[in-house]
């Protein structure tokens, strides 16, 4: 006799509950899933990486930070962004809140870069809530163009 798959059963149950919830509250259920990952489960800040021939650009989505509470370090080819997003109103009591969707707290994230970088010339700019880190590629990581001779 085949053993029942527990995970499959849980998944079926979850789907069934989702379906029931969506029938009860059709508008609410469509707007967001029933089981969203918690804030701590997500990586913060989210990053985008771009590059060109000489630089790597790392963009982090981190609105509302104070640059004094922000730390960017580079070791070999790993960038670490750490800091603290402060509460906008630390004195506000829970009963004063109508909505609280913006998270606050300490964070740290390390991002591995695809190439070695020249860690003495890294610059970081914070503008409109986006942190832009510009990392010059190490001399040996810059591609060298080799001319092809026609024999």
């Amino acid at each position, binding site marked *: 006799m085949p053993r029942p798959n527990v995970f499959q059963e849980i998944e079926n149950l979850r789907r069934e509950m989702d379906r029931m919830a969506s029938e009860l509250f059709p508008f609410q259920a469509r707007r967001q899933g029933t089981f969203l990952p918690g804030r701590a489960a997500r990586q913060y800040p*989210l990053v985008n990486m771009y590059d060109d021939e000489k630089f790597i*650009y790392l963009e982090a989505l*981190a609105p509302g930070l104070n640059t004094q509470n922000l730390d960017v370090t580079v070791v070999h080819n790993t960038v670490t962004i750490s800091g603290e997003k402060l509460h906008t109103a630390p004195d506000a009591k829970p009963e004063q809140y109508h909505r609280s969707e*913006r998270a606050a707290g300490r964070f740290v994230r390390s991002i591995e870069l695809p190439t070695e970088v020249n860690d003495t010339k890294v610059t970081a700019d914070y503008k*409109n*809530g986006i942190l832009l880190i510009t990392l010059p590629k190490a001399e040996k990581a810059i591609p060298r163009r080799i001319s092809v001779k026609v024999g």
Partner: protein
Amino acid sequence: MAEKTYPTTTQQQEIVPEWEKTRTEERYIAPPVDIYEENDALKVVADLPGVDKDSVAVHVYNNILTIEGKPTHKASGNPVYSEFELVNFFRQFELSDAVDSERISANLENGVLTLTLPKSEKAKPKQISVNVS
């Protein structure tokens, strides 16, 4: 304070084949907000990363507060790895009569928009002293 989205004129679905349109519908996301109440005002704090002073619009019409933002931030270079996309921000809230919509003030700093919605006089809490006889 209930969130309410007012649809722009919705037309009845006609039974005609759907053709691809030359102009795609604008994509937007709802920014996360904190709303908290102070003694004399309601504060709305919204995260609008990549939006600057000229590309944010806040307006109140028929007691509906609308926050709109178009990120102006442009990236240089070729994408290598991507976790987020900057699309337009849009969110609406229905205000009660207790908000004095004439005196709403807004401040944008580091991608965070803070709106101060002053309470109208009649909505302010009043202390009533209790006399012990």
